[in-house]
């Protein structure tokens, strides 16, 4: 597991699993940290990853700039048959997707196990 320290106390830990990658995002994904998160995600996409499970249990906050990372990279992943699955999002984070009507764009499940079933 590789762990990267990012500004605003955000941490990203990517853990390759069979058929995909689980990404644990901890801390705040705001207009500051989303710049680094976007580079990180693009790198993983360019390495060929398509099945992303974002484990949001430790994601304390998301701003529109954080959502923008998922939105702007969506087609590159989905066009290759990939997907973004979010698991364990906290209520306040999930609520931001809901306010903007983004809940149909991605897949949301409650646990990492459920997410892993979807990609296997």
């Amino acid at each position, binding site marked *: 597991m590789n762990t990267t320290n990012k*500004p*605003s*106390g955000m941490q990203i830990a990517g853990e390759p699993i069979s058929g995909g990658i689980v990404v644990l995002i901890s801390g*705040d994904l*705001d*207009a*500051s940290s*989303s*710049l680094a998160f*976007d580079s990180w995600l693009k790198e993983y996409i360019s390495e060929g990853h398509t099945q992303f499970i974002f484990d949001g249990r430790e994601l304390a*906050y998301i*701003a*529109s*700039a954080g*959502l*923008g*990372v998922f*939105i*702007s*990279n*969506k*087609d*590159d992943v989905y066009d290759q048959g990939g997907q973004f699955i979010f698991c364990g999002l906290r*209520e*306040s984070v999930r*609520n*931001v997707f809901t*306010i*903007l*009507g*983004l809940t149909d*764009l991605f897949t949301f499940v409650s646990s990492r196990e459920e997410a892993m079933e979807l990609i296997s």
Partner: protein
Amino acid sequence: MIANYSVACRREELKSIRDRFGGELAANGITGLLRDQIVLAVDEACANAIIHGNDCDENRMIRLEADLREGVLSVRIFDVGKFEFDPKLLDRDIDYFIRHKMKGGLGLRLIHAIMDEVRFDVVDGVCVCTMNKAVPVS
């Protein structure tokens, strides 16, 4: 006045704005999801002023002011940068953002969805974003 402070135009200040302003809301009885949403709207408005208004120029400041009166929370963000507003951004559907691989453009939408009244005033070169929201009186 429940808040009145200035911060430099750096993205890294956003976290402390959220922490500080969230604390002030809690101290005034605004908690839970309502608090989280208001903090989000304020974060988005400050991010716009810092990034779009002032190109993250650390030598420039934005000022945040808030008061709570008769059940209405009023937040004002002042900046002396440039201001741009295109109402088209509020109407476009999400597919447009995806197709154009847009990283931004949803912040104002969040602000409008969360707050009851949102306005921008440019007076004598100062841009003020005013956001009001009715909150339960404690």
